[in-house]
């Protein structure tokens, strides 16, 4: 059993309510921060913890906080990014649904550190019922003096508001989120200026992921140094992984980043192995936009070393033979799954979610979707595969925001590692409609007994 800092108390009955949460030691970090620490000391503690943004980019959170501008007389804002929309990712939902007070607690401490008197939670519109859960928690916190004016006689005022989005993946990108929070289309802004200088309503703004802000609570409670001792290297602390696809036990798991990928997939503590006695074919380890890896590159790196569930190990080998930690959306594909079809659904997703601002992404995502559908249906040509490669190359790096890269990477990785499966859809067009390509040489090296 690894260390649990966030979900340790998730299974206590009634933990969603203020009474139980407080009884279990909740809001201690607010007492500590507001009564014995300065905002600068809190930022310093978060820097020491090595906490990296849990939304996907993995940027050091303390560093991000230290960039916030503090012009005289201009309000600053903290915005919590709860627009969780990356396919395969459902960890923030779990946190908010079951431990709403943990997020509120982290938000109060972070708001104090950043000087935000009005903090916003921007939550994806589809999580409609979670808005009620969060607002109930906010009201309870307010009624007990943790929000409002002069919290704990510290002279610090803070209110938290929940804003619902309306169905747009792009609003998970921080500048698109800010635009949306201002009541506009979610078109990402050109940076600089960065939100830390000019964000919400042109005021200095920090946007952090739900899990990042929840992690501030244990960091303040145990101290940044202690937090940094958990995990390995620059992957400090714990990470929530949402596991899904063809596994026996889909769900949200908290890991301390010293677990191997093999253990994570096959042990009963986590995913419990591949469902229905099938074999592992491929995995998208960090949300749909990160490179897909065949089984033989997933469990071990190209150098033959064990691969672990952390930022460095998952990206070992770069994009040639590695992938990324991303948002922690861990998607497993068994031997019956078709890589071409899976890539097609992801391409369709990115076409649907492109905001349309930059030509390479607007045009390229739709073009890739059409080509992939053609290949999937057995109507493709061999040259379509090269064309796909060419299109994704021309999207990557040529757009205002990272959605372009996010759309390009899954297509690139699928062709890189599963090119013979794409070719098979052309050379065996009829057969590809009735039978899956199967495992070929991608099979996981682990012997899995065939179930009766």
């Amino acid at each position: 059993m690894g260390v649990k800092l966030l979900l340790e108390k998730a299974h206590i009955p009634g933990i969603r309510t203020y009474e139980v949460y407080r009884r279990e030691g909740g809001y201690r970090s607010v007492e500590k921060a507001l009564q014995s620490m300065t905002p600068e000391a809190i930022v310093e503690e978060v820097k020491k913890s090595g906490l990296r943004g849990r939304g996907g980019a993995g940027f050091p959170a303390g560093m991000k906080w230290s960039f916030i501008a503090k012009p005289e007389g201009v309000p600053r804002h903290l915005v919590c990014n709860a627009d969780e929309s990356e396919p395969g990712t459902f960890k923030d939902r779990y946190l908010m649904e079951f431990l709403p007070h943990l997020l509120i607690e982290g938000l109060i401490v972070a708001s104090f550190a950043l000087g935000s008197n009005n903090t916003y939670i921007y939550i994806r519109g589809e999580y409609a019922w979670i808005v009620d859960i969060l607002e109930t928690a906010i009201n309870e916190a307010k009624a007990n003096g943790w929000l409002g004016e002069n919290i704990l006689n510290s002279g610090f005022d803070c209110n938290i508001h929940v804003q619902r989005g309306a169905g747009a993946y792009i609003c998970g990108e921080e500048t698109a989120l800010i635009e949306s929070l201002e009541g506009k289309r979610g078109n990402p802004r050109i940076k600089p200026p960065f939100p830390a200088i000019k964000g919400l309503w042109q005021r200095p703004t920090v946007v952090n992921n739900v899990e990042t802000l929840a992690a501030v609570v244990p960091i303040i409670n145990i101290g940044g140094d202690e937090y940094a001792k958990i995990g390995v290297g620059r992957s400090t602390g714990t990470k929530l992984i949402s596991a899904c696809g063809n596994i026996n036990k889909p769900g949200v798991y908290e890991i301390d980043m010293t677990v191997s990928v093999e253990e994570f997939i096959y042990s009963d503590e986590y995913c419990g192995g591949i469902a229905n006695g099938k074999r592992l074919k491929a995995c998208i380890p960090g949300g749909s936009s990160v490179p897909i890896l065949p089984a033989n590159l997933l469990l071990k790196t190209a150098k033959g070393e064990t691969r672990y569930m952390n930022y460095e190990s998952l990206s070992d080998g770069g994009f040639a033979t590695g992938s990324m930690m991303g948002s922690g959306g861990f998607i497993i594909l068994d031997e019956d799954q078709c890589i071409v079809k899976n890539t097609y659904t992801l391409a369709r997703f990115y076409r649907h979610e492109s905001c349309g601002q930059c030509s390479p992404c607007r045009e390229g995502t739709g073009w890739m979707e059409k080509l992939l559908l053609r290949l999937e249906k057995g109507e493709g040509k061999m040259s379509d595969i090269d064309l796909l490669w060419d299109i994704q190359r021309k999207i990557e790096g040529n757009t205002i925001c990272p959605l372009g890269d996010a759309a390009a990477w899954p297509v690139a990785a699928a062709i890189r590692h599963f090119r013979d499966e794409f070719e098979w859809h052309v050379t065996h067009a009829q057969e590809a409609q009735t039978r899956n390509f199967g495992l070929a040489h991608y099979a996981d090296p682990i012997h899995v007994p065939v179930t009766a």
Partner: protein
Amino acid sequence: MVKFSEEQLVEFNRLVARYPEGKQKSALLPVLHLAQDSFGGWLSSETMDYVASLLQIKPIEVYEVATFYSMYNLKPVGKYLFEVCQTGPCMVSGCDDIIDYIKSKLNISVGETTPDGLFTLKTVECLGACGYAPMMQLGKYYREHLTKEKVDAIIAECKAQSN
């Protein structure tokens, strides 16, 4: 004529009060949700113009937003809107069979509404329930781990509710 009730106006004022003076446009997304819920599950141009007048912004600012976000319906939908996820993780967990089953059961295609106006079927992209796939959104809540039997039960539940 579309007009919020007293109760809806209280909610409208609560939404606008979250933002600084002069930044009432920020309330546009939540107000559009409120309007959609209040006026038959979709946004007519009359509704959008009304929202614009309430927020003191130009109608085009409302149209821009209403057409960008996928949760706003720009034409009428059935009383029960089945929004079934079809992205990668749901696909590998068998959502195609569920979508086909709903189609045959309700005798409609994706995007269509049953003649009695009760059901609309829509496919959507990832709703963040990947571990509980296949799934659909029905109103405010998610229906997860869908099977044919569960779909039957949901349809029966909706029919019973509408009687």
